[in-house]
């Protein structure tokens, strides 16, 4: 019974195994990115940037059809341009990072949909908006795995300056020039992950495996490292469970994964040990001093 529900779908179908590998790769790198997005109060900005990728990918599509290379390259270029511009604008002008992005995100989404529609069918459009986890080919899988590895490596290198820059940017600036490097480096990794997420979960949901696991983790622990661990675990669990639900119920896969991550989040809101509702409102035992 349990075997039929949990193992058989992956054992019997190659597309399920591919989807599993792709989703797990995304969840592993998305989690730490999401944790820093959350701690830097950039959660909504990540979403805005996900949309900024669409026109680039759509241009790639116009040139070469549904080609992995062209759409990845287009999306990545668009994402990097936006990400670096937003970072520089925030660093060197009085405008905050979020200020210019809200308008930008609507424009990009609208432009992307128009570009896609100029040549493609509505099926292609759906695929771009909501992804195609069940149709990952070798090249796409390789891309997801590479992005995931690169992200984990990059974050390991940037970890300390990135954390310090988030806590006390003024202090880091007086002792080191690493602040801007960590900031821009993080934004570039974000763009990479958004493009990877775009292939699997689509432009509208690609931040799902970043923000939801990170928010879940924040409700369970007060330690950054532990937060990344919890976020990874909850992202991977959401991927597996979401895939199985989608298989059993015939739901669209990307949304099923994001919904599962959402259920974890809502449960954590209620019961999380570090700030969940039941914990923060109930009277608690306290020490003598």
């Amino acid at each position, binding site marked *: 019974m349990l075997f039929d529900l949990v193992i058989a779908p992956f054992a019997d179908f190659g597309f399920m195994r591919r989807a599993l590998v792709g989703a797990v790769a995304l969840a592993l790198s998305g989690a730490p990115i999401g944790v820093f997005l959350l701690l830097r109060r950039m959660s909504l900005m990540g979403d805005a940037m996900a949309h900024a990728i669409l026109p680039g990918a759509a241009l790639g599509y116009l040139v070469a059809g549904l080609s992995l290379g062209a759409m990845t390259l287009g999306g990545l270029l668009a994402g990097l341009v936006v990400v670096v511009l937003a970072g520089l604008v925030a660093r060197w002008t009085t405008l905050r990072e979020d200020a210019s992005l809200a308008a930008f995100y609507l424009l990009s989404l609208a432009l992307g949909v128009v570009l896609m529609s100029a040549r493609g069918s509505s099926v292609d459009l759906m695929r771009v908006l909501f992804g195609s986890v069940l149709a990952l080919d070798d090249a796409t899988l390789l891309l997801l795995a590479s992005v995931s590895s690169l992200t984990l490596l990059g974050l390991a290198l940037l970890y300390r300056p990135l954390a310090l820059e988030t*806590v006390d940017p*003024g202090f880091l600036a007086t002792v080191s020039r690493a602040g801007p490097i960590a900031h821009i480096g993080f934004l570039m990794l974000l763009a990479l992950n958004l493009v990877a997420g775009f292939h699997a979960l689509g432009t509208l949901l690609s931040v799902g495996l970043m923000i939801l696991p990170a928010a879940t983790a924040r409700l369970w622990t007060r330690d950054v490292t532990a937060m990344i661990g919890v976020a990874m675990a909850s992202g991977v669990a959401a991927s597996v469970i979401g895939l199985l639900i989608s298989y059993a119920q015939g739901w669209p896969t990307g949304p099923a994964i994001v919904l599962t991550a959402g259920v974890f989040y809502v449960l954590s809101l209620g019961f999380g040990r570090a700030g969940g509702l039941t914990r923060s409102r109930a009277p608690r035992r306290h020490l003598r001093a």
Partner: protein
Amino acid sequence: MTALRFRDLTLAYDGHPVVHHLDGAVARGALLAVVGPNGAGKSSLLKAIVGQLTPAGGALEVDPALRRRLAYLPQAAEVDLSFPLSVYDFVAMGLWRELGPFRGVGREAAARIAAALAAVGLDGFEARPIGALSGGQRQRMFFARLALQKAELILLDEPFNAIDEPTKLDLFALVERWHGEGRTVVAVLHDLALVRARFPQTLLLARDVVAWGPTATVLSPVNLARAAGMVEAFDPAADLCASAA
């Protein structure tokens, strides 16, 4: 040996000066208090020394040997206290110049962190989240980080504001220790009693320099009255300053 030299230094926001034609020098190893009314340019002066504010006129020279060994405690640090970080890790930041982005905290460094925490009376607080500290404990934490920096030029901007008397005395003992070790300390303060009792040199600033020298002569009733009269007289139609060279 001069640590800092100001040559006709003017600092301004939107053309309105907050520090006006400042001349003078701070010797290596000095313990200098900067006092004056609100809006007198005290914080701006520190920001300019750190390099966060570009002079609108004149020049500011920091001894190159000290530039890299400078520690600055701003008045309102932009610290995100909701970040999930322990007091220990926060204080350990003070070792950045030695550890950089990758090196771990070795045994010697761990001992120094423990000593810094003990020196500010925060031993036992290592594992607390930084957001769970009181205002006084937070300031103690900032001082512990500052102590770890081994800085030769230390800039403090109103470090004892909203701090109770025992905490102030504890933290000031640290400042005096740094002074005793020959480090240069410039502190912006409002507590004139503390300045009179403990600071050999004082700069009384009220946009223009009112007086600069031995504390006892600088903080005379006449000078203080002059300084109070010069506060924040903001004239939207002010003429261009003619004393500019």
